[in-house]
C-alpha cells in the first residue's frame, strides 16, 4: 500500500486527476465529505489531503511514502526527500518585487518582506547583499506600501495582485512547479510500486505536453 499525500486545494485536485488517469484511481477522493483519508485497496493506494506546505514534512517523516509538493516548499525547507518528477503543474515563479518607484540604494540594508526567509536569505547571500528579513505570513504585498519593507520576495503567478498594488517584478529567483517527492526509506523498500507510479504519471504528463 502506497501512502500518498496530496496538497489540499485546486492544485491537489488537478494532481489527483493525473494520478487517476495513470491508473491509480480512488473515486471517493473527490467526494464532498470531510474525510481526509481515502483508500483503494485493489490499486494499492491510500490518499490523504494535507496543507500544501505540510506535504514535504509528511513525506520526509515517512507518514506518506510519496507526495506532491511545490518547488518553493522543497527549496524553503530542504526536506531530505527524493524529487522524482516535475509534474509541470502549478507553475509560477519566486521573484523579488517592489513598488514601481523603488530605487535600490546599495549603501543601506535592504528590507525584504517574505514568507520564504530561507530562499530570500540564500538569494541575497549569493548577491553579497546585506538584508533585513521581515517574516510575514500573508498579505506580503502590503509591506512595501506601508513602508514596512523595501521589497518583497514572494510567489508570482499572473502578476495581477502585484499590478493592483502598484508593484512590479525586479528579479526572478526561480521557477516553481509541483514535484512528485518520495521518502528515502520508502523509495528503497517500496521501490517497484513507487517507480511504477512515477513512470505511469510521467507518461500521462508527457501525453499532455
Amino acid at each position, binding site marked *: 500500500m502506497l501512502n500518498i499525500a496530496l496538497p489540499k486545494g485546486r492544485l491537489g485536485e488537478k494532481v489527483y486527476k493525473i494520478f487517476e488517469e495513470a491508473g491509480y484511481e480512488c473515486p471517493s477522493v473527490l467526494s464532498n465529505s470531510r474525510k481526509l483519508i481515502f483508500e483503494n485497496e485493489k490499486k494499492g493506494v491510500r490518499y490523504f489531503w494535507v496543507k500544501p506546505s505540510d506535504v514535504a514534512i509528511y513525506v520526509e517523516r515517512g507518514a506518506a511514502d510519496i507526495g506532491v509538493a511545490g518547488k518553493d516548499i522543497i527549496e524553503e525547507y530542504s526536506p*531530505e526527500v527524493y*524529487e522524482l518528477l516535475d509534474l509541470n503543474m502549478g507553475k509560477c515563479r519566486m521573484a523579488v518585487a517592489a513598488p514601481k518607484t523603488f530605487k535600490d540604494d546599495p549603501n543601506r540594508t535592504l528590507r525584504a518582506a517574505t514568507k520564504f526567509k530561507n530562499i530570500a536569505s540564500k538569494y541575497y547571500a549569493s548577491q553579497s547583499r546585506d538584508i533585513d528579513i521581515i517574516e510575514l505570513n500573508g498579505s506580503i504585498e502590503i509591506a512595501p506600501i506601508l513602508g514596512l519593507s523595501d521589497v518583497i520576495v514572494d510567489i508570482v503567478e499572473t502578476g495581477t495582485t502585484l499590478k493592483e498594488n502598484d508593484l512590479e517584478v525586479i528579479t526572478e529567483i526561480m521557477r516553481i512547479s509541483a514535484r512528485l517527492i518520495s521518502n528515502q526509506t520508502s523509495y528503497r523498500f517500496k521501490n517497484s510500486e513507487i517507480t511504477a507510479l512515477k513512470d505511469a504519471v510521467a507518461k500521462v504528463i508527457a501525453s499532455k505536453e
Partner: protein
Amino acid sequence: MNITIDLKSFRADERMALSLRAIYESYGYRPYKMSKFEEYELYSSNIDFLGDGGVLTFTDVNGKLMALKPDVTLSIVKNSKGSVGTQKVHYRENVYRRNARGGSFKEMLQSGIECIGNIGTVETVEVLLLALKSLSATECSYRLDISHIGVLSSLIGDDIAGEIKDELFTCIKRKNAGGIIEIATVNDLDIKRFEALAYAVSLNGNALDVIASLKEIPYLSACEGLNELTEIITALNSLGYKENIGIDLSVVNDMNYYRSLIFRGYIDCVPEGILFGGRYDDLVKKMGRNCGALGFAVALDRLQDLAKVNYGDDNALLVYDENMSPSEIMNAADGIRKNGYSVEITSDKEKSSGFRKVFYITQNGVTEDENA
C-alpha cells in the same frame, strides 16, 4: 545477590548498543572512550568534514575555547597520529549537533567503528560486512546503499566548481534528474554528460545490475571506482548479502573528504537513514598520517521508538503502613520481587493505577489487593 537482566526490558536503542558492541568486539575492534570536550580549533579547521550541524562551544577555565564534540571520527583520527599499523576501534558516544532540519542542538547517541591504517579490499569488505551486521541487528528489513565519489567525479568532469557544484550536489542528493539537466542548460554545460549523470543518479536496485548499467556509460568505461565496487559487491554477495546491498550514486556527502566509498544504511521501520559511513583518507592525511581510513556510525537515537517496551507488564506497587519499620518493608518488597515483579514502594494509598499488582503491608502482614 544475582540479578537477571531481561534484554526485553531495554529500549531498542539500548539493546542495539549492546548488540553492536558484541558484534564489533568479535571482529577484534577495541572499545574507544573519549572525552566529552575537544578544543574548538579541531572542528573549526575541519568544518567541511562536519557539514552544517554547528558546534556547541564554551570557554574553559584557562580561557581556551572548547566544544562539546559534534563528531567522533575527528577525535579518533587526531589521536591516531603517530600510531603505526592498522587501528580498529569501536565506540558508543554522545555527539552534540543540530539535526538536519536545523533547530536547536541535540544530544545524539552514536555507535560505530573506525579502521585506520592499511586499508585494502579485505579491510573494506570487513567494514561493510560489519555495517550490514549492524543493520541486521535491528531485526528489521534492511539495506545498505553504496556510492563511489570517484564514479561521480568521472561523470561530472573536472571543470565544475563553486555554486554550480553545490547546486548540482543538491540535485544529486535529491535524485532530481530534471534539476541536473536544467543546471547544464542554464550554465551552458555539456548536456550529454549531464544526461548521463541524471540517468546514473536515478539508478537503484540490485548492485551488480546497477554496476552493469553504469559500465555502459561512455564516461565510465575506464572508471577505476566501478572495478573497486564490483570486487567489493561480489565478495559481499557471496557472503549472503545479495538482497541487502544496493548501488545508489545519490548517496553523497562532502566531496572534499570522501574520495571513494561512501555508504548509508536504511531499515524499513525508520523513515530516514540510520547508518552513515565512508572512506576518508584525505582527512587522515590532513591530520598528519599517511594512510587509509574507513568507518561508519549508527545513529542510535533514531532507533529508540523501534520497539515500544510495554512497561507495566510486570510491575507491582507495595503500599506500606507508616508504622512499619524500613527493614520489614524492604524484606516484603524483596519477597514480591522474587516472584518476578519490579516493585515500587509508597505510603500513598491513592497511588495504584498503572500497576499490574498492588500489595499492602501492615502489622497483619502482606496482602494483595484483589481488585487492582
